[in-house]
């Protein structure tokens, strides 16, 4: 059978890739997609800990469902902002939108 560490390392890999995407991508939609990757990695971690924990509670699964709701809200509002920004600037590159820098 598979030891717990394998799942955790797998989730860590997906999380790090997502982090790279968030830091390095220009396009806002691409950044949002990377955030989805990170949240998925979190879910894998939660479910792995639930499966390998010795008490038979379902807290891990409940947390995962809540994460689904949160990530759906996040992506909905994020993409709404993308559409709004695009309408205003005709541009959705995170580098060029810097009105709030000062």
């Amino acid at each position, binding site marked *: 059978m598979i030891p*717990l560490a394998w799942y955790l390392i797998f989730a860590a890999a997906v999380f790090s890739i997502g982090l790279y995407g968030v830091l390095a991508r220009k396009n806002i939609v691409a950044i949002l997609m*990377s955030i989805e990757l990170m949240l998925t990695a979190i879910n894998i971690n939660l479910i792995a800990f639930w499966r390998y924990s010795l008490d038979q509670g379902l807290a891990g*699964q409940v947390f995962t469902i809540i994460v689904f709701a949160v990530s759906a809200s996040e992506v909905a509002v994020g*993409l*709404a902002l993308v559409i709004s920004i695009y309408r205003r600037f005709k541009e*959705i590159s995170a580098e060029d939108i810097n009105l709030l820098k000062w």
Partner: protein
Amino acid sequence: MNFSILIFLFVAVLTTFAALVVVTNKNLVSAAMWLIVALFGAALTFVLLEATYIAVVQVVVYIGAIAVLIVFTIMLTRRSAEKEPSGATKQWPIAAVLSLALFSGLTYFYLTVPGTDRLAPVLDKELNMVSALGQLLVSPSGYVLPFELASVLLLAALIGSIVVAWRK
């Protein structure tokens, strides 16, 4: 059982590869397609972990709804997405180093901390997981507050998104 290890390795490699393509592909729609592959890989992982309800929910929510929302948004903001000369910002090497450091740090931690080499306990065969989940979600001693808050959160997200994106 060797079989499950093989499946796990296949799923892990596929998902990681897909995730890499997502963050490096310049074509946004292709990136979204690969995101779907990665998310499906996560669903397969949940099946391997015997959290079958979460697995199907992952497919329903991410592939059924979030992926469609993302693709629609890409098509709505088409002109900008096409114009983009390169996918990455100038500081991408720093980002790569940072995430590699995070990954290696986490891996080192997981391999050295005690208890992570344990195997999965046998699940209670009698347990009807979905039913138990439902009872837990609405019982006052369980998670009724997050349950109701989730609906308020979704309502807020819905109204907020319409306010931001919709213009008559």
